[in-house]
C-alpha cells in the first residue's frame, strides 16, 4: 500500500513537472506572439518543435548527439576514477588535504574553458581536448564531495571495522566508500554538470565534435529554431546521464 502510494506520488510529481514545462512553453509562445519577446531573439516554441524532425534529417543530429554522449561518458568515467581516487588521497593524508583543499575549491570557480587554447596545443583539435577540458572542469566538486563523504563517515562504523580487524584496504572498500557514496554521487552529479557545460562549450568554440558544433553552425546560419532544437538535444544528453547516475546510485546505495 505504502509502496503504491509512493509510486503514485512520484508519478504525480513527474506529471506536475511536465505540466509546468508545458505551461512555461505556452506562456513563452503567447509572449512571443503578442510581441513582448522579440521573435528574432527567441523563436516560437512551436517552431522549435517543428525544427526537430528537420535537424534530425538534415543535420545528422543523432550522430552528433552520440558524439557528445561519448565525450560526456569518457569525462564521467575519468571523473569517477580519478576524482574519487584524489578525494580518497586527500582524506587519507591530512597534511595533503590541509595544503590542497582550498586550491581544489578555487579550481571549481576557475573558468577552465578559457584555457582551451592550451588544451588545443597539448591534445590538438580532437575529442581528447574536449574530454580533457570537461574532465578538468568537473574534477573539483568530485574531489571535494568525496573528501566530505569520507570524513563524515560515522565513527561507530569505522570502529565496527576496527573491531573486526579490517585491513586499511578493507576498511576503505567495505566501510568508508559505501558510507561516503551518497556524498560522492552528489559530487559526481555536480561534476557532470560542469563537464557537460564545458564539453558543449568547447565543441562550440573549436567547431569540432557533436552538438556544440551543430549549435555553432546553426547559429551562424541564423537558424534560430534549429539552434534551440539542438539545445533540446543537449538537455536530452543531460537527462540521460542524470537518469543513469540516479539509477546507479540507487543500486549502489540501497537504504541510504
Amino acid at each position, binding site marked *: 500500500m505504502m509502496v503504491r502510494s509512493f509510486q503514485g506520488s512520484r508519478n504525480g510529481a513527474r506529471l506536475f513537472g511536465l505540466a509546468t514545462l508545458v505551461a512555461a512553453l505556452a506562456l513563452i509562445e503567447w509572449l512571443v506572439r503578442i510581441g513582448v519577446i522579440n521573435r528574432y531573439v527567441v523563436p516560437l516554441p512551436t517552431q522549435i518543435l517543428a525544427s526537430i524532425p528537420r535537424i534530425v534529417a538534415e543535420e545528422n543530429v543523432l550522430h552528433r548527439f552520440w558524439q557528445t554522449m561519448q565525450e560526456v561518458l569518457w569525462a564521467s568515467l575519468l571523473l569517477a576514477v580519478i576524482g574519487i581516487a584524489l578525494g580518497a588521497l586527500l582524506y587519507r593524508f591530512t597534511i595533503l588535504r590541509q595544503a590542497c583543499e582550498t586550491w581544489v575549491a578555487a579550481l571549481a570557480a576557475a573558468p577552465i574553458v578559457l584555457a582551451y587554447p592550451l588544451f588545443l596545443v597539448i591534445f590538438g583539435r580532437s575529442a581528447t581536448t574536449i574530454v580533457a577540458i570537461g574532465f578538468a572542469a568537473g574534477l573539483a566538486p568530485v574531489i571535494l564531495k568525496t573528501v566530505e563523504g569520507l570524513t563524515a563517515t560515522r565513527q561507530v*562504523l569505522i570502529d565496527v571495522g576496527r573491531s*573486526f580487524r579490517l585491513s586499511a584496504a578493507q576498511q576503505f572498500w567495505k566501510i568508508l566508500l*559505501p558510507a561516503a557514496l551518497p556524498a560522492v554521487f552528489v559530487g559526481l552529479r555536480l561534476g557532470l554538470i560542469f563537464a557537460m557545460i564545458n564539453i558543449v562549450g568547447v565543441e562550440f568554440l573549436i567547431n569540432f565534435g557533436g552538438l556544440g558544433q551543430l549549435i555553432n553552425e546553426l547559429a551562424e546560419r541564423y537558424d534560430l529554431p534549429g539552434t534551440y532544437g539542438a539545445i533540446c538535444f543537449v538537455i536530452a544528453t543531460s537527462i540521460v546521464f542524470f537518469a543513469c547516475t540516479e539509477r546507479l546510485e540507487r543500486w549502489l546505495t*540501497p537504504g541510504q
Partner: protein
Amino acid sequence: MADLSTPRSAASAVPGSGGAMLDVAHITKRYRTAEGVTTAVDDMSFCVAPGEFVSIIGPSGCGKSTVFNIIGGLLGDYEGRVSVGGDVIAQTHPAIGMVFQEESTFPWRNVLDNVAFPLEIAGVAKQKRRERAAHFVAMVGLRGFERHLPAELSGGMRQRVALARTLASEPRILLMDEPFAALDEQTRLLLGDKVLQIQQELRQTTLLITHNLTEAVQLSDRVLVMTYRPGHLKREVAIDLPHPRDSEVVSSDAFGHYVAEIWHDLREEASRGIRADETRVLEAGTHR
C-alpha cells in the same frame, strides 16, 4: 553483596588468576586536555570467568566507555594490562566481539549481509557464510527479515542485527556498551530476555557496560559498581537470582533488593557527578 576487599564467590575469577577468560589488571587512562591531565579511569582491576555475565555500572562520565574501548582494543596509551585467556592483548583481538551503543548496522547491506560481514572478512565461502548468518539471524529472532534493509527496521531490531553480526564472528568474549540505551524500557526488558537466552544457549562470556540498574541486575551474574571520575571499582555485587532467568524476575523481591543495594552506592556517585557538572558550568560562566 561484597566489598572489593572481600573474597569473591567461586563463580567469579580473581584478577591475575589463570581461570579468568578476561583479566583486566590495574588499568589507568589519563587524557591531556587544555586544563591539564584528566584521569578517566584509575587503577581498575577485575576479571570475568568463562560463561559468566558481568555488568559494569556507573554514573555518566565515570569512564565506562573508556573501559569498553580499552578492553576492545580501540583505545591505546593506557597503563595496566588486559588479557584474554592468559594472552595479554594490546589492540583489537579476534576473541573479543563488540556491540556498540550507537546504531552500527551498515545501512547499505540487508540484514543477512550485515550479519555475514565478519564471515565475509574471514573469507568464508558465500553459501556457507549465508547459512551461518541465517542461523544467527534466527537466533536473535529476526527470521523472515533477512532481505530487509536496516532503514526498514525498528531501533531494537537494528540492535539485534548488530548483536547477531558480532555473534557471527564467534567471539570468546561478548563486550557490549549500553546496546539498548536508545530503546524504550519495555523493548529493553524484552531484548534483555533475548540476550539472556542467547547467553545461556552459547554459554557466552559477556561483559556489559551500562548505566541502567534494572538491566544490570536482570542480566548479570555479577555487577561491578564504578565511582564517578576518576572511575574505579567501588563495589562488586554477586546477583544470586535463579537461572534460567527472564524479565519476569524484575517483579521479585530479591530483584528489588539488589536494585536498592546498588542504587545506594550509585546514588552517591551520580550526585557527585551532577555536582561536578554544575561546578564546571559555573566556572565556565565565571571565566567568560
